[in-house]
Each structure stands twice: as structure tokens, then as C-alpha cells.
């Protein structure tokens, strides 16, 4: 077998022609290649399998090959080919055009709005990965590429975990797997497969983008690594004085020591970064100093007696924290339908610990709002609609931090709802079906279009006929 290090430009490799060597890392070599048959160009990755290479070099490659083959969508490179060649095992993947997040990080501290924009892209990419049963476990700026369309793509899956596949990465090492600056407390303890570990690393990335500093430095020994189990990072507002409280709240919420205290999903982080006005501020957001040695000592004691958490597949974690969107038309829906929507919401979120309910409503522009002072009128209608949504949700008696309210605007009501569901990574939409109103005959059914086009499960709520008759009788 020839050594892979000698692949010179022009070398024919499987169905590809080598163009240039891009990188020689400790574990693998990366080349840009062109397809010989006019097919798609890509990146060729070959593990270093020379005499004396660490076995983990191959395991990391094997994991990436295995997991890339199971992933799809805009947030990961596509696997174009993989197999064995004369030079050993290889894989060819899509080369993602864009800018590495490391370049953005080099310019940190960035303005809060920019941190939020990048954070939304990254959190959305992570959630998409988690939904495909994969935890990245090595999230850091150099493993994220911002595509030109603003979406983020994740690369390097050598340490990743797939809930349905053997954990080959873990099997290769007795030491914690990950990059010391970004690794979560549970990863340090050897627990793998929890999507909230990536949420922690996301918190480290956000901290870095917002302040230009790493919250836990770059420890080299095990003692340095374990410090984050007991000691808080310096509050970001101490470094950047004008950093908004909501951003500190989000960052420190991601960096909670106990996974249960963090955001339950990356989708929730994305949602909060998109809607800072709706972030529930706690002590975390206002904190000016780290917790004292007493808290650290308590955490140390708690860590001693901590039970290992139950093992769950990544998607089983997500299932504990569904994002529910209730679409409410306060103009046309009737009181019995409001009640039925509340009943359905209670049934669906009942029993789940970390669910979130977004109450959404679409405001349609009318003749009135297109007049000269239309914007003013629209603002008034917007506020009125928001008040009505709060009024609808009040009887549910749900804790405030689990609820979100959104008034959307647009003529195409189903399209706006679906767009919002997509952006907020909704797992479930609850929407009312109106009877046979004249409006529905004229415009078609909103609920049926939402049901057929939504990216998630949709429950269409209808007031049962007998209930309607009862109401009539009561009225009579």
C-alpha cells in the first residue's frame, strides 16, 4: 500500500482526480478532488494509517464515514463516496462554500445582534443534527462553516455519537473526548449522547463571540478540565459592559453545569436568540460576579454523589422538550373553539417536562392599515392581538417561562404559520378548524393547508357537534 501522504496533484484516486492538498492534520489528510466523469467535485479525506499512527486516527475516520452516511440536509456536508482504494480507506464529501466561524471568532467581541445571528444559525444546525439522532461532541468555531445564505453547516464528525450505531469513538479512548476549551461537564465524566452537551459547547462559542474570551480558558490537564464542574465562568457583562442582559442570560443558561438546568434543546436557544424581548430574565442575566467558594464546594459534594443520568437516544432527549405552536385566530375563532384549543394544548404538553408553547396569530393587512396612518393602526392592532393571545393562554395556568407569544403579519395566513413553525423548529402545531363559514368558502381552509404543508405533526381541533348543540340549548 502506498502512503496517502504522497497523493500529488493529478493523481487518480478512485473516480476522482486529486487537485491539491488542503490540510494535513494529526489524524487525516484532506485533498480537494475533481470527479473524473464530470460529476461533483469534493473533499477527499484519508486517515493517517502509517506505522506508529494512533488507532484513534482510524476510529475517528470510521466514525465520520459511518455518521456522514446517515446524515442529510443543508447543515452537514453530503457524503459523495466512500470505500477502500489502493491507498486505503477514503471518503469524499461535499466542499461547503462559506466562511469558517473561526474567522468570525477572530474578530470577537462582536455586537450582540451579530452574535445572535450567528448563534441562531449554529443552534438551528445543531437541532437539525440532533433530530437525526446525532450529537456532534466536538463543536467549536473551526468546525462550523457559515454558508453564503446565512445557514450554518457542521463539519468533522470524528467524535460524533449516533443513537442507533455502536460508539466507536468512545471505544477507542479511556480519556474524555472533545476539545478542552469547549467540552461539557458530562463529557468530561465520560457521558456521551446527550444533545445538551452540544448546547453547552454552543454556550462556549457564544461566550467567545460575545466577549472575545473563552469562558474556561484552554486547560491542558484533567484538573483544569474539571474546574468547570464547580466554578462559574466570569459573567460576560463583566468583560463587555454594554452586552445586553438577555444575551448573558442565554449564554449562561447554555453553560449551566447540570445538563438538566440548561436549555433542553438547541431549538430553544435559537428561538430565544431570535426573540430577545421574550427571554425571561433571571439572576443569570443580571449576575455581576461568579458564585463564591461555598457554591463551588456544594457542587463538588453534589458531583461526588451524583447518579449517572439515564441513557437515552438523542431524539429521546428531544422528545422530552417538544416545541408546540398553537395557532389562534382571535378574530374568527369562537369561545368553544378557544376552549377546545386549550384542552388540546393541555393534553399534548401534559407530562412533558421541558415543552414550550408558542401562541401565534397572523394579522392580515386590510384597507384600513394601508391608509396614510396605516402603520400606526397596524401597531395598535398588533398590540390588541398580543393582549388577546395572553388572554387566551391565561386559563391554561402554565408557567410564564414556558410560554411565548407572537403576532405575525401577512396576507397568506397558512404560509406565515408554516414559515414560523419552520423557523422555531416546531414539533407540533395545534390549529382550530372553523365550521363552514363564508370566509372559509371564499378563502379555503387555513387548517387544511397548514396540515398538508407543515414540516411537523399537526392537530386540527374541531368543536364537536354535540357540544355546539349543547351551547345552543343553553342559550335557548
Amino acid at each position, binding site marked *: 500500500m502506498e502512503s496517502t501522504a504522497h497523493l500529488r496533484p493529478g493523481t487518480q484516486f478512485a473516480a476522482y482526480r486529486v487537485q491539491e492538498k488542503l490540510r494535513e492534520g494529526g489524524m487525516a489528510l484532506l485533498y480537494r478532488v475533481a470527479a473524473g466523469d464530470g460529476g461533483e467535485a469534493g473533499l477527499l479525506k484519508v486517515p493517517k494509517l502509517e506505522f506508529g499512527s494512533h*488507532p*484513534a486516527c*482510524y*476510529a475517528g475516520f*470510521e466514525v465520520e*464515514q*459511518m455518521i456522514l*452516511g446517515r446524515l442529510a440536509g443543508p447543515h452537514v456536508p453530503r457524503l459523495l463516496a466512500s470505500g*477502500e482504494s489502493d491507498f486505503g*480507506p477514503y471518503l469524499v464529501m461535499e466542499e461547503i462554500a462559506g466562511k469558517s466561524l473561526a474567522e468570525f471568532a477572530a474578530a470577537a467581541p462582536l455586537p450582540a445582534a451579530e452574535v445572535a445571528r450567528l448563534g441562531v444559525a449554529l443552534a438551528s444546525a445543531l437541532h437539525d443534527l440532533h433530530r437525526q439522532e446525532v450529537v456532534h461532541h466536538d463543536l467549536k468555531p473551526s468546525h462550523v462553516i457559515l454558508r453564503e445564505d446565512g445557514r450554518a453547516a457542521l463539519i468533522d464528525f470524528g467524535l460524533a455519537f449516533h*443513537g*442507533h*450505531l*455502536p*460508539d*466507536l469513538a468512545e*471505544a*477507542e*479512548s*479511556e480519556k474524555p473526548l472533545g476539545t478542552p476549551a469547549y467540552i461539557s461537564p458530562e463529557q468530561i465524566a465520560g457521558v456521551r449522547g446527550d444533545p445538551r452537551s452540544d448546547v453547552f459547547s454552543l454556550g462556549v462559542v457564544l461566550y467567545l463571540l460575545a466577549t472575545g474570551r473563552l469562558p474556561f480558558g484552554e486547560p491542558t490537564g484533567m484538573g483544569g478540565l474539571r474546574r468547570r464542574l464547580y466554578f462559574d465562568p466570569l459573567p460576560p457583562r463583566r468583560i463587555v459592559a454594554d452586552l445586553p442582559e438577555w444575551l448573558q442570560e442565554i449564554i449562561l443558561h447554555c453553560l449551566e453545569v447540570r445538563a438538566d438546568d440548561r436549555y433542553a434543546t438547541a431549538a430553544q436557544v435559537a428561538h430565544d436568540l431570535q426573540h430577545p424581548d421574550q427571554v425571561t430574565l433571571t439572576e443569570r442575566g443580571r449576575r455581576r460576579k461568579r458564585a463564591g467558594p461555598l457554591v463551588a464546594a456544594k457542587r463538588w459534594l453534589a458531583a461526588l454523589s451524583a447518579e449517572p443520568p439515564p441513557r437515552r*437516544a438523542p431524539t429521546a432527549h428531544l422528545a422530552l422538550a417538544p416545541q408546540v405552536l398553537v395557532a389562534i385566530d382571535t378574530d374568527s375563532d369562537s369561545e368553544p373553539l378557544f376552549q377546545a384549543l386549550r384542552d388540546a394544548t393541555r393534553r399534548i404538553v401534559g407530562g412533558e417536562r421541558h415543552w414550550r408553547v408558542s401562541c401565534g396569530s397572523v394579522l392580515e393587512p386590510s384597507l384600513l392599515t394601508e391608509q396614510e396612518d396605516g402603520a400606526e393602526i397596524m401597531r395598535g392592532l398588533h398590540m390588541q392581538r398580543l393582549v388577546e393571545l395572553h388572554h387566551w393562554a391565561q386559563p391554561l395556568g402554565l408557567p410564564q417561562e414556558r410560554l411565548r407569544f407572537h403576532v405575525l403579519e401577512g396576507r397568506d395566513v397558512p404560509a406565515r404559520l408554516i414559515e414560523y413553525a419552520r423557523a422555531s423548529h416546531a414539533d407540533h402545531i395545534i390549529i382550530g378548524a372553523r365550521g363552514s363559514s363564508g370566509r372559509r368558502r371564499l378563502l379555503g381552509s387555513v387548517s387544511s393547508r397548514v396540515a398538508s404543508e407543515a414540516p411537523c405533526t399537526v392537530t386540527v381541533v374541531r368543536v364537536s357537534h354535540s357540544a355546539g348543540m349543547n351551547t345552543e340549548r343553553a342559550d335557548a
Partner: protein
Amino acid sequence: MKIAVLADIHANLEALRACLAHATREGATQYVFLGDLVGYGADPVACLGLLADYAARGALLVRGNHDDAALGGLCETMNFVAREATYWTRAQLGGGERAFLAALPYTARRDDLLFVHADVNAPGKWNYITSSLQAGRCMDAAQATLTFAGHVHHPSLYFAAGSGVHHFQPVAGAPIPLTGRRRWLAIGGSVGQPRDGNNAAAYALYDEEQRTLKYFRVPYDHLSAARKILAAGLPERLALRLHRGE
């Protein structure tokens, strides 16, 4: 080629037929039966008839401890229920069936795959592989990339890594890529007497081209299989076991 590997059929015709039909739908073109073809269930003759057809068309079969016991000899290592079932099975088998069982080898090989009922280390000793240590010894003895075993009735996958042999609990229906640069030991679970709390029949399907392994669970008419066990006068516990899958 896709190879269906079916272990521990235990004379359960309903489960066998359901798995074979499932494997055909999944595109299987080669079949391997990992022993314990008979014992416990009420249809040894019908099952062996069906398996003989598959053998005539190129299927591979290996011998299990219950196949061994059905041919005669003392069964002092077996528990009471297994012994009862063995005596009953012996009484059902004719010369043809006995000759078929007597011709079964302990192991079978196909390229880089090795098939065994219990443990390659000592195939006739019928050891149970229940730990990574035992799995490692079995893989060492097999000298194959991928070894298939039965006998333990619980679906499992073991693999060799830098830090030793590791165990993985497979998820039904999820394809697992098995690279050729490490050793694997796959235990597909039992067709005819599942014991992991799930009463659906279990088997594994290996895709040679893709090098992927899938574990399947196939629900079958376990009530009919249990009714036949009762009607045959076999111990009631064997019927109950199919219902509970334990």
C-alpha cells in the same frame, strides 16, 4: 447479496415462516440457520422439512445443542422443561429428520463470515456469550471479520476496539455499517423463542455489498404456536414463554 441469519428457531413454524417472509421482502437471497432448529416448539418435523428445502437451495445450517440432544444421549445438563421437550422431540423425528440433523456441522464459513451456534472457541461445549470477554475470545477463535452466533436469545453486537471488546445494543431496523478493519460478533436474537421481554421473532440481515447489518423484530402468530405446544402435551411454561417473550 443479502444474507438472512436466523438462529434458535426451536421448532416454531409460525415464527420461522414470518421471519422468512420478512427476509424475502427485505431482499434476502442467501439464508443461514444458526442451530437449535428444534426443541421446545411443537413443529419439529414441519420446520425441518422447510429447512431441508432451503438447504437444498444452498442455505447454510449449523448444529445447536438442542439439535444434538434430539439425536440421543443423556441430557443431564438440561433443565427439566428442556429435557421434557427433548424427549418429546425425539419421539417425533423419523429417520430422515435424524439423518438431516446428524449431518449438521458445528461451524460454517462463507468468505470472511463465520457462523456458529454458541461459541467458536469450543463449538461443542455450548458456552453462552454473555460478556465482552467471552465475545473477544470467540472472535479470536473465529479469525473472521464478522462472526454470527445464536444460543443466548438476546440480540447483541460486540466489536473489537483499541481499548478491548465493546458491547452494543442494536436498534431494530437501523442499518449498522460494519467496517472490514475491525472484528464483529453479531447475535441476532431468537426466531422461535425470544427472551428479551419482546415476544416478536428476531433475526439479522447482512448486506454483503453495503457491509451493513440490520437487526429485525417480526411479530408473528405466537398464540397459534403456543396453542400447538399445549395441544402436544409439552410443558405449559413453554407456551407461556412465547406469549411473554421471556
